[in-house]
C-alpha cells in the first residue's frame, strides 16, 4: 500500500468515525407553535441537553430591530421549557463592527456569545484576524446543512476552508427605474436597458440640464449601492481579489471599464453639481431620496429599497430589472449582501452551543417570512423560495430576484484579510478619480493595488 493510499484510508476512516459521532450526537428535534409578533409560527426546537442564557448583539435598528425583537421573543418562547434564553442588546453600526466596539469587547473579554451584522466584508476581516470561533463542528451538532446554500453566500462563510460566518438571508442588487420618466423621455419602460451602452442612452435621455445646473439626472453611478466599494465593479465583471493566488487585482479590464465609466460620467456632468443632488439627509429611507423626488430617473440598489419606496413614496411608480453590464460583465447577476451570524472568540463551548440554537432557529423559513415579505430579502437556499408568501402569491419582482439569486456568477467580492481597508481605500480612489477627471484610471488603480497587496502580504 502506497503512502498516498494509506493516507486516503486514514482520512476515510476518520470521516466515518466523525459521521458516526455526529449521528450519535444528533440533536433531538421537535416542533412547537409560538407567537412571533401578531402571528403564530411553527418552529423546530432542538434539544442538545443543555440550558442557560446567552447574550446576543443585534445590528438592526428601526423596523428591523422591532422584527428582531419579535424573533427573539419567539425563540425564548420556543425554548422556555428547555430553560434557554436569549438576551439581546441592539448595538448600532453593524453590531459594533464598524466603530471598534466589538474589537474592544473581544479583547476585553466582554464580547457577546453571538452577533449578527449587516457588514459581511468587515466581518470577514474579523474572521481572518481570528476574532470569531470556527463553526463547522457546531453546525454539524445542530444539524444545520449549509451545503445547499447559494455558492455566492459561501464566499463569506469560509476563511481558509473553515466556516466562521453563517448568513441569515441575502439580498440582490437591481436597477430601479421610473416608468413615468422613461415614457416622458420617449423610452420604452417595458424594455429597460440590458447593457451599459443602453444604460448610457437612457441616462442621457432622462437628464435635464438647466442654465445653472441640472433638474434631473438619468442615473448617478455612485449613488446608493453604486457607493459601495465593489458592488458595481463585481457586476461589471471585475474580480478584485483572487483567493487562490492571494492577489489583489484592481487593474483588470473590467475594473478599468467600470472606473472609466464612472470618471467619464463625472467629466460629462460635473461631480459637484451631481453631488448637490445627493448631499444632505436624504438617505435611502427618507422621502428626500432623489429617486423619490424625481431628481434621478434610475438608481442601482438592493431589494430593500422597495420597502423604502412603499413607506416614503407610495405614489411613485417604479420598475426593476437586472443591472445592465458592459461586455464581459456578469449578466443577470448580483453581489450578495448578507446579514451574517458569528460567535466571537472567547465564547465558551456551552454558550456557543446555546447561541448556535438561535442561528438554527433564525434559518427557518417560518421565522424569516416577515423579513422576506417586508424587505424582499431572499433565502440563502433556492428551495426555501417556495415557502415564501411572495413566491406563492406570484410576485413578479420576487421571481426576478430568485432568477438573479440563482446565477452561478453571484458572489461577495474582495473578501480577504484586509477587506475593510481595501473597500475604504478603493472608495477614496474612486472619489479622487471622480473629482480629478484628468487622473489616469489605470495608474491610480495600480498604485492602490500595490499598496494594498503590501498590506496583505505583511498580515
Amino acid at each position, binding site marked *: 500500500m502506497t503512502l498516498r493510499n494509506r493516507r486516503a484510508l486514514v482520512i476515510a476512516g476518520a470521516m466515518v468515525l466523525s459521521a458516526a459521532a455526529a449521528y450519535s450526537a444528533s440533536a433531538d428535534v421537535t416542533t412547537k407553535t409560538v407567537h412571533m409578533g401578531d402571528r403564530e409560527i411553527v418552529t423546530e426546537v432542538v434539544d442538545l441537553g443543555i440550558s442557560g442564557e446567552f447574550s446576543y448583539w443585534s445590528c438592526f435598528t428601526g423596523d428591523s430591530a422591532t422584527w428582531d425583537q419579535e424573533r427573539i421573543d419567539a425563540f425564548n418562547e420556543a425554548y422556555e421549557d428547555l430553560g434557554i434564553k436569549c438576551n439581546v442588546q441592539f448595538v448600532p453600526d453593524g453590531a459594533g463592527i464598524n466603530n471598534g466596539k466589538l*474589537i474592544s469587547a473581544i479583547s476585553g473579554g466582554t464580547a457577546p456569545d453571538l452577533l449578527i451584522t449587516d457588514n459581511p466584508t468587515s466581518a470577514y476581516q474579523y474572521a481572518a484576524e481570528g476574532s470569531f470561533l470556527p463553526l463547522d463542528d457546531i453546525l454539524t451538532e445542530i444539524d444545520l446543512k449549509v451545503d445547499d446554500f447559494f455558492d455566492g453566500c459561501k464566499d463569506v462563510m469560509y476563511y481558509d476552508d473553515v466556516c466562521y460566518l453563517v448568513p441569515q438571508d441575502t439580498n440582490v442588487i437591481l436597477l430601479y427605474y421610473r416608468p413615468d420618466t422613461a415614457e416622458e423621455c420617449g423610452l420604452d419602460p417595458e424594455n429597460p436597458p440590458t447593457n451599459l451602452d443602453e444604460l448610457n442612452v437612457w441616462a442621457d435621455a432622462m437628464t435635464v440640464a438647466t442654465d445653472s445646473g441640472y433638474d434631473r439626472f438619468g442615473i448617478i453611478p455612485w449613488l446608493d449601492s453604486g457607493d459601495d466599494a465593489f458592488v458595481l465593479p463585481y457586476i461589471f465583471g471585475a474580480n478584485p481579489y483572487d483567493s487562490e493566488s492571494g492577489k489583489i487585482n484592481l487593474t483588470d479590464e473590467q475594473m478599468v471599464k467600470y472606473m472609466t465609466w464612472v470618471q467619464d460620467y463625472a467629466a460629462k456632468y460635473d461631480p459637484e453639481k451631481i453631488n448637490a443632488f445627493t*448631499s*444632505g439627509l436624504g438617505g435611502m429611507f427618507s422621502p428626500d431620496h432623489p429617486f423619490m423626488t424625481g431628481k434621478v430617473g434610475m438608481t442601482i440598489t438592493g431589494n430593500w429599497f422597495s420597502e423604502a419606496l412603499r413607506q416614503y413614496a407610495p405614489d411613485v411608480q417604479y420598475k426593476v430589472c437586472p443591472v445592465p453590464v458592459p461586455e464581459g460583465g456578469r449578466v443577470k447577476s448580483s453581489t450578495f449582501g448578507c446579514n451574517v451570524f458569528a460567535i466571537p472568540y472567547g465564547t465558551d463551548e456551552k454558550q456557543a452551543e446555546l447561541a448556535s440554537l438561535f442561528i438554527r432557529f433564525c434559518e427557518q423559513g417560518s421565522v424569516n417570512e416577515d423579513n422576506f415579505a417586508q424587505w424582499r430579502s431572499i433565502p440563502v437556499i433556492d428551495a426555501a423560495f417556495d415557502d415564501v408568501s411572495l413566491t406563492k402569491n406570484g410576485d413578479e419582482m420576487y421571481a426576478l430576484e430568485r432568477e438573479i439569486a440563482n446565477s452561478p456568477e453571484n458572489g461577495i467580492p474582495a473578501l480577504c484579510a484586509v477587506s475593510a481597508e481595501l473597500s475604504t481605500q478603493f472608495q477614496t480612489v474612486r472619489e479622487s478619480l471622480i473629482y480629478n477627471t484628468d487622473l489616469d484610471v489605470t495608474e491610480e488603480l495600480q498604485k492602490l493595488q500595490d499598496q494594498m497587496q503590501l498590506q496583505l502580504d505583511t498580515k
Partner: protein
Amino acid sequence: MAKEKKKKVNPYKTSVMRRKEARNGLLFVLPWIIGFLAFTLYPIAASLYYSLCNYTVIKPPRFIGTANYRALFHDATFLASCRNTLFMICVGVPVTTVVAVSVSILLNYKKLRGTSWMRVVFFIPTLVPTVVACLLWIWVMQPDTGIVNTLLRYIGIQGPGWLSSVKWAKPAFILMMIWTCGNAIIIYLAGLQDVSETLYDAAAIDGAGFFKQTIYITIPLLRPTILYNVVTLIIGVFQWFTEPYIMTEGGPSNATMFYSLYLYQNAFSFFKMGYASAQAYIMLVVAMLVILFLFRVLKFGETEMDS
C-alpha cells in the same frame, strides 16, 4: 548667629503629626495615582511600544521597529490628513480667533446696547450637543435648500455644494467652528474685564479712538487669553473627530480627512493598532512643537510690563 538660625529645624517637619498628615494625604490621592498609572501612564507607555509593532489587538503584537513610522510617510491618506489638519490650524484657527476676539470686544463695548442678550446668543450654540450640531449643519450646508445657499441666492450668488465640494468642504467646517466659538468668547470677555478702565480713559484723553484703543491696549493685554484659546483650539483641531465623522466621513476625496479621523479608522476599522499608535505619537510630538512655538511667539508668562 545667622548660621545658627539656618540650622534650626522646624520641629513640625519631623513630628509624628506631620508624618500622619503626609500618610493621610497620600491615601487620599492614592485612588487618583492608581487611576493615573493604570489608565494614563500605562496606555501612553504601551502605545509607544505598540507603535513599534504590527498589532491587530486580537493577535499578540509583533515587533517591527520603526516600520510603522516609515510607512506613514508613504501613505497618501496620512499625508492628506496632515495637509487638511494643517489647513485648519493655519486658516481655521486664525479666522475663528479673529472673529471670537472681535465679537468679544464688541460685546464688551460699554456704549453698545443689548450686549447682555447678545452674549447669551453667542453662547447658546455651545450648549447644543455636537452630534445634533453636526446634523443641523448638514442641513444648513445643504446645496439646494440649506440656509447658507438660500441667503447667498438672495444676493445673486449660486452657493457651492459645501460638504460635497472638494474646495468648499473645509471652509464649511470653519464656518461651523466659528458658530461654536461661544466658549472662547466667554473666556475673552473674562480677560477683557481685567483690562483697567483707566488705560482707556488715559488713551481717550490722548485722542485715541475705539480702534486705536483696541490695537494698542486691548489686544496686547488680552495676549495671555488669546494664547490660551489658540492653544486649546489647536489641540482641538488635532483631536477633531466627531464633526468630520458624522458630516462627511472624510470625503469628498479625502478633503475632510483630518488627523484623528484617519487615526480612528486605522485603529478601529482596519485593526492597525500599531500603525495608529505611531500616528498618535507623531501627533503628540507635532502638537508639542506647535504649542512651544506659540508660547515663544506670544511670549507666554511675560506681562506687558516685562516687554
